[in-house]
């Protein structure tokens, strides 16, 4: 019996190590290319215009927080941040509760038309909502929620429901029936069974669905661009355009603004990178 290891052994250690070394060099070079722009952004945030011009790649004085102080004090940055947190938070809460409700009904009950209901949500996965932006604009105007956060919440919930129903239905179907049957024998109501027994078991799938949806919602720029005019209501990505316009010549402040805007999701990503990668590629990999 020859194994794969024997074959590579025949080629000699040098060939194997040489090739692995080359691969390692390519991977390191790639990571440098991926991380250097972010590192330069952070370092430039601690520099003044002169230093950015003359010493673009130098290590700055990290204790000098002038640029950050300016961004926080003299722009609407914190306002935009709060708006993003509010819109994303409300949307996610609605997506997860409505999505779980629908998925639970589809996965746990045999009722006429349950296949149709699933299909109804699946259709939403394929329809590009961006191209319906004009009817949405008119619909929100007629509903009187244009230029409010509710227009964004409505669109994000609609965007997030299909994938959430898809992920949650698949997961809930794998849960054992014995638990709920036992509870039913004890006289628990359907609502109590769902809330006390099934929902706690759904947490892993909710995390996947949550991450899958939170990134595009937090980062969205297109819908606020069309629906929100009032500066005080702008979300962070949209507010960045205002900010970048106002400080167009103070480059240190611009880099500081970008650094602050990138910080929340970057920190979250570094802490939960595994969940992020699984969550964001789960739609594709399954």
């Amino acid at each position, binding site marked *: 019996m020859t194994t794969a290891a024997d074959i590579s052994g025949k080629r000699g250690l040098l060939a194997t190590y040489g090739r692995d070394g080359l691969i390692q060099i390519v991977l*390191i070079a790639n990571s440098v290319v991926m991380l250097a722009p972010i590192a330069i952004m952070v370092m430039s945030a601690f520099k003044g215009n002169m230093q950015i011009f003359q010493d673009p790649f130098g290590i700055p004085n990290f204790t000098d927080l002038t640029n950050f102080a300016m961004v926080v004090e003299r722009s609407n940055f914190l306002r935009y941040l709060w708006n993003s947190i509010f819109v994303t938070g409300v949307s996610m809460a609605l997506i997860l509760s409505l*999505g779980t409700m629908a998925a639970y009904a589809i996965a746990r009950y045999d009722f006429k038309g349950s296949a149709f209901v699933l299909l109804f949500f699946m259709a939403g996965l394929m329809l590009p909502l961006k191209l319906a932006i004009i009817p949405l604009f008119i619909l929100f*105007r007629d509903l009187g929620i244009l230029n409010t956060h509710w227009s964004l919440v409505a669109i994000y919930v609609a965007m997030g429901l299909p994938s959430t129903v898809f992920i949650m239905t698949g997961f809930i179907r794998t849960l054992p029936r014995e638990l709920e049957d036992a509870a039913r024998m004890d006289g628990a109501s359907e609502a109590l069974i769902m809330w006390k027994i099934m929902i706690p078991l759904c947490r892993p799938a909710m995390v996947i669905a949550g991450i899958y949806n939170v990134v595009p919602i937090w980062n969205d720029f297109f819908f606020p661009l069309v629906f929100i005019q009032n500066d005080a209501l702008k979300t962070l990505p949209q507010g960045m355009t205002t900010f970048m316009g106002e400080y167009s010549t103070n480059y240190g402040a611009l880099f500081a603004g970008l650094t602050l805007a990138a910080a929340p999701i970057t920190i979250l990503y570094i802490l939960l990178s595994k969940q992020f990668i699984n969550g964001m590629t789960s739609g594709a990999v399954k």
Partner: protein
Amino acid sequence: MSQSDVMAPDVAPVPPRKGLRMTGRGLWIAFLIVPPMAVMALFVIYPIISAFAYAFFDWNGLRRGDFIGFENFRTILFDPIYSGTFWHAFRNNVLVFVLLMIVQNGLGFVLAYFLWRELPGARFHRVAVFLPVVLSTVIIGYLWKLFFNPIFGAVNQFLKAVGLGFIAQPWLGQADTALISLIFVNAWAWVGFPTLVFLAGLQRIPSELLDAARMETDNEFTLIRRIIWPLIAPSATIVFVLLFIGAFNFFELPYIMVGLDGSPFGSSDVLGLMFYRTAFGNVASGNQEFGLGSALAVLMFVFIAVFATAWTIYLRKREIEV
């Protein structure tokens, strides 16, 4: 929502469960599915259907006028004022797609293949390559716009520092480099996505299969072409089709980096920018042409839907044949 109203009474006669009143069960199921379906009907199904209908009407600003059949489509495709821009933007979208296919997906495969070897540090490299994917396009766009600044931008400064100063140029300010720069930034930002989808595909290949194949051939390229690539075909299908859809919906990065007109001189114009200008007006005019905008949206949707579906079917067949 009307569907679920109809459904509720149907629910009752299905399998009777002990200890539960029929109507109660029907109501409970309706309570679970009606609100989410109402959201979908109101904010997805209705707007999408309307988007098609709007394209057949004459619009006066925000007010809908007469039914005019295919007139809006004719204007977009054949009226010299719009058709030149349309085909120019379309060609740019095709270029974006082809180049991203080579750079973004090509590099993604190579990186996935290298990461698959699990050399020391592979986990770190995997986290690094995916980091820009979670950042907002707006942040990425502005960051690279600053880097491309001809005077102090990091790109030219770097080129000078490594002795390639003669390549330094105003990347976003020239007609023949603006679109290429956009494509580069997009590839930098998104390469992590195909990388991890390919990697997931590679990790699902059974190791016995690979060991068997390695006994047959010593050549790594033959192995990739004959064994590995066919086995990860499902990953390729997803990555290719999503890139196709993304390339023809290209909007946010161009909007941030080259402006609503695709500067300089419209050289980096794409359909997404043209759509936004037509529908919501540009800074200069402020005109809102909802009819023409809708027609353009429908043209884009039909094009993307038809090609994405046909290509998916073709790619899926290829998966099975292997």
